[in-house]
């Protein structure tokens, strides 16, 4: 077995987690909404994509749309579901928000298991429509997929950068720091948060979930457990909560490190030890980093180090001058 396609696939998965971590950073790092429901959002996007592309006569029938239309559709559906979930839950604070998002993700996963007719249940959805697959040899396709994942990552990165440099991003961080004060400055904090949740949903359904689906090749509920949520969180914590690129770097490092062990050949007797390595690594990294480097590899302060504005641009003729203070 050549290892190059293997690494391309691992890197693709790393970018999927990295994109999710960049989006989680907008929501949790800058917005202070500590969301444990990521797997639920990805699941909604993934199943939406699969069902929109799946042909009407398949085992799990769908609409048979082309992949790009299904991506848009999955984005819109995930956005709406996120907004509907966000509307009641974002009024909750701290641990109550955390628990509620956690519970929503679990409800979504259980519903996928239960609604066999729609989702294929635990048997899953196979025969995923992968874009451009017909033009390439199966042995070359991992590299095409990596290219698609990289393009999607660039888009997510652009959105994340735009947010970080915008009035909206600044307001989000302000409302995280001191909610009553933000309100007293005219910020509709609840609306900003729901819009953020919807934005994360849109991007998840549009980009993260479809790439994840292409990477998986077939959908089963087991791909959307809390494990996925915590993988994203650990990537973000490693990279640095609140930094601009930390989530992406942390997620890629984490997935590459934990998938690398698959290259070790073991006899089947010890296969379970190998399966245990990834959760073990995730857990140890979380504990160690929170203890000794809670700000992660990159930090929020580093990300927003002030490009200090020159003061000579001040107009001294403003009517509201506070001459009294200069004394």
């Amino acid at each position, binding site marked *: 077995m050549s290892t190059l396609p293997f690494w391309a696939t691992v890197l693709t998965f790393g970018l999927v987690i990295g994109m999710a971590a960049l989006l989680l950073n907008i929501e949790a790092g800058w917005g202070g909404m500590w969301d444990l429901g990521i797997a639920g959002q990805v699941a909604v996007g993934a199943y939406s994509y699969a069902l929109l592309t799946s042909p009407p006569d398949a085992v799990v029938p769908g609409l048979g749309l082309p992949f790009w239309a299904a991506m848009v559709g999955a984005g819109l559906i995930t956005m709406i579901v996120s907004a509907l979930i966000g509307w009641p839950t974002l009024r909750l*604070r701290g641990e109550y928000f955390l*628990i509620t998002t*956690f519970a929503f993700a679990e*409800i979504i996963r259980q519903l996928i298991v239960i609604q066999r007719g729609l989702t294929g249940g635990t048997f899953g959805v196979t025969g995923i429509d992968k874009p451009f697959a017909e033009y390439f040899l199966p042995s070359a396709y991992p590299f095409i997929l990596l290219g698609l994942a990289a393009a999607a990552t660039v888009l997510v990165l652009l959105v994340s950068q735009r947010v970080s440099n915008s009035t909206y991003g600044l307001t989000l961080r302000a409302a995280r720091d001191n909610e009553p004060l933000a309100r007293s400055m005219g910020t509709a904090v609840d609306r900003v948060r729901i819009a953020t949740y919807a934005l994360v949903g849109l991007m998840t359904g549009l980009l993260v979930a479809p790439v994840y689906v292409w990477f998986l090749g077939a959908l089963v509920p087991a791909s959307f457990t809390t494990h996925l949520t915590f993988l994203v969180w650990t990537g973000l914590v490693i990279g640095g909560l609140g930094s601009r690129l930390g989530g992406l770097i942390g997620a890629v490092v984490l997935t590459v490190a934990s998938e690398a062990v698959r290259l070790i050949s073991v006899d089947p007797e010890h296969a379970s030890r190998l399966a*245990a390595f990834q959760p*073990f690594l995730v857990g140890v990294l979380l*504990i160690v980093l*929170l203890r000794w480097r*809670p700000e992660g590899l990159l930090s929020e302060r580093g990300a927003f180090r002030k490009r200090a504005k020159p003061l000579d641009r001040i107009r001294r003729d403003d009517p509201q001058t506070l001459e009294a203070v200069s004394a």
Partner: protein
Amino acid sequence: MQSLVFGLITGSLLAVATAGFALLRNTERFLHIAHGQFMALGAFLAVVLTAQWGLVPGVLVSVTVVAGAGVLCGALLFDPVKPQGGNVLLFTSIGLAWVIYALLIAVFGTEVRIFEVSLGQGWDLGPISLAPGELAILAIAALVILGLWLLLNRTGLGRSIRAVASNRELAEVRGVPVVRVSRVIWALSSALAAVAGILLGVLGTVTTELGWSNILLVLAAAVLGGTGNILGVIAASLVLGIVMDASALVIDTSYRPVVAFVILIGVLVLRPEGLFSVARRREVAA
């Protein structure tokens, strides 16, 4: 009627697990996600040890080992990050949950295990049927809860625990040995998790997913029960258990957990002012 009995059993096991979770939540002020993995750890140890040493010694040793592991984790992993607040404690607990989960898979493998005990032939009591083993499980759960209640309300140690729960700083000033009390709480909480895990295992099967599949129910019961009295947690657990099993009469049994989480979310949304959030918002706004 039968589903009421099942619900009572489910609820009382949930109550044992949640009581331990709530002890930590109320005193150390964080959500101990790894609590579910302590349940699984207890169940796995007990499956192996009871097969070798017999039922009672096996269970006792397992519970003791898990309690000791809890104390160690509390002292070595959680105490050092306590100054960083509840969210860091929470994510440390999530990290610990993954480590324990990985170790369980590595040591015990992923195949399903069962306890070598029989629940016995079901007795027909009018409209319901109950096996002696089920009755024993119910009795053990009730005894454990009663014991915990007596400990908390009728002993000096219990008074110290409640003092730490209501105001840690004040308790420290009044001379309560907070560190020692904290160790005892970790031991108690972990032991309760082990007992709940073992009882769940005896009733059903033991798998490495036992922890993850139960932690959300524990969270739900703890939140519904509130942070005040241990009785609130017990009542919430019983209600959740009974409603989950009774819902099987109306809709498919596979919706059991969904029903529990929908109740949780419903209650949270209707009563969004959780105790912590009110206190914090007032503080900032005042």
